[in-house]
């Protein structure tokens, strides 16, 4: 048993006190919510519509099942977003005048797709392009809806990666160039690996947002969790399935968000 220094035991006491205050106040707030909300006159109705145990039990397995679709769409979109985001980020950094059109295109692309609501892009691409008369299976809403998500999110990821590239000090570029490395090699082996690592937390937040926005694909047909919840809502005239869907989303996104925050903290500590 290592003995504590005077400072350590003081800090331990302080910590204990702080924890007790935090626990007590949290408990008080929770108790107030649990005790007071049911006193509201409409509570019985709200409870029946939103927190209906029977409806929850009946619909939850179906919702979980539909969530598999969300995860699947996420899983095939995410790597493509990472790849396209990287390409666009590099294209935006091209300095050679011959490639100026590519750079211009990349700038226009990120501006346009960050400037549009996701749902609008999904509608336009998901209904519009197949409407041109593509044959099956190339007109599938899964393909074009996913493409819409990929286009929008790649624009954001590209900007994040570019901010990472710009955060790498010029001395790294100089060091690489002074060895005789080409501009391309300098980017690929020296700048990008550092830049990408630095923006992992920011990108994680984007991918968490993506997991939520996958639900928007339901507007063009695919029956994922949000749509399935809507069907249950309509059949039972009850909103509880939405609460179930929310819980399923949170079960995935809260740990992911905490992890991203943890990484972010770790990184800002390491840099300071």
């Amino acid at each position, binding site marked *: 048993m290592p003995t504590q220094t005077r400072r350590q035991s003081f800090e331990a006491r302080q910590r204990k006190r702080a924890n007790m205050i935090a626990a007590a106040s949290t408990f008080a707030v929770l108790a107030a919510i649990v005790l007071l909300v049911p006193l509201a006159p409409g509570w019985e109705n709200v409870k029946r519509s939103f927190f209906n145990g029977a409806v929850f039990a009946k619909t939850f397995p179906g919702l979980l099942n539909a969530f598999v679709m969300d995860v699947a769409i996420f899983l095939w979109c995410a790597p493509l977003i990472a790849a396209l985001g990287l390409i666009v980020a590099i294209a935006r950094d091209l300095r050679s005048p011959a490639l100026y059109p590519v750079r211009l295109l990349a700038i226009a692309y990120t501006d346009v797709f960050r400037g549009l609501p996701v749902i609008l892009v999904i509608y336009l691409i998901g209904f519009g392009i197949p409407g041109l008369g593509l044959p099956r299976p190339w007109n599938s809403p899964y393909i074009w809806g996913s493409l819409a998500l990929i286009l929008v999110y790649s624009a954001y990821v590209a900007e994040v990666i570019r901010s990472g590239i710009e955060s790498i000090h010029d*001395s790294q570029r100089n060091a690489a*160039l*002074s*060895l*005789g490395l080409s501009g391309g090699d300098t980017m690929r082996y020296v700048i990008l690996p550092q830049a990408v690592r630095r923006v992992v937390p920011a990108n994680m937040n984007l991918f968490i947002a993506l997991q939520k926005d996958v639900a928007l694909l339901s507007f063009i047909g695919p029956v994922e969790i949000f749509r399935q919840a809507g069907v249950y809502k309509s059949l039972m005239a009850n909103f509880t399935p939405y609460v179930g869907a929310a819980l399923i989303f949170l079960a995935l996104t809260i740990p992911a968000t905490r992890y991203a925050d943890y990484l972010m903290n770790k990184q800002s500590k390491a840099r300071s």
Partner: protein
Amino acid sequence: MADLKLENVQKAFGDNPVIRGIDLTITKGEMVCLIGASGSGKSTLLRCMNLLEPIDDGNIFLDGTDISEPGKDPQPVRQRIGMVFQSYNLFPHMTALDNAMLAPRRILGGSRAQLRPALEEMFTRFGLHDRMNHFPDQLSGGQQQRVAIIRALAMQPEIMLFDEITSALDPELVGEVLDVLRDLRSQGMTMVLATHEMGFARELADKVCFLHQGRILEQGPPDQIFEAPNEERTKAFLSRVL
């Protein structure tokens, strides 16, 4: 043969003339030291020699070839002229060995296995054999700077440029880095140093150049510059640093 010859080199940043007409000849096997106050243009001059900064006017000849011609590919030149920086600038995401391995692999070609023995020998020679697989943030400043030197040497350059490579080091670590320079000197490496280590310059340099506001005010063998400087400004500078 690896002579570097500068003729009337000029460089300005915006309307701030930083190098204002420098003539300088560095002959093979020579060690030339650039001294001068902070801001006098030492770093910029070294960066010009390495083509990290394009010059505005004048010429730089490497073995008689004009390497400063605008629009010329700087890569082959940089491969022949190594450079080490004040702040080490190691690649933090690579081990010491990988730092040294990157440029030879990409440029000279060859597998890791082929390149490794020569590099390993260099790490051993500079007392870093047990640090090869460490990442930069696991190394002391002196160790990092020695790795940076190895990284530059790995390209087997004909000339080495050193920009105040001991200035960021704790005093007790300066010695180990200067020892590496001594070693290189004894091997006959052609070197240009910007330095504040006057004792070292005096001991080993063939030629010392005093820079003032982008010009070489005075140059000559160390004994002459340090003991009998002609210029008032040189005297004033030396009296402040010695």
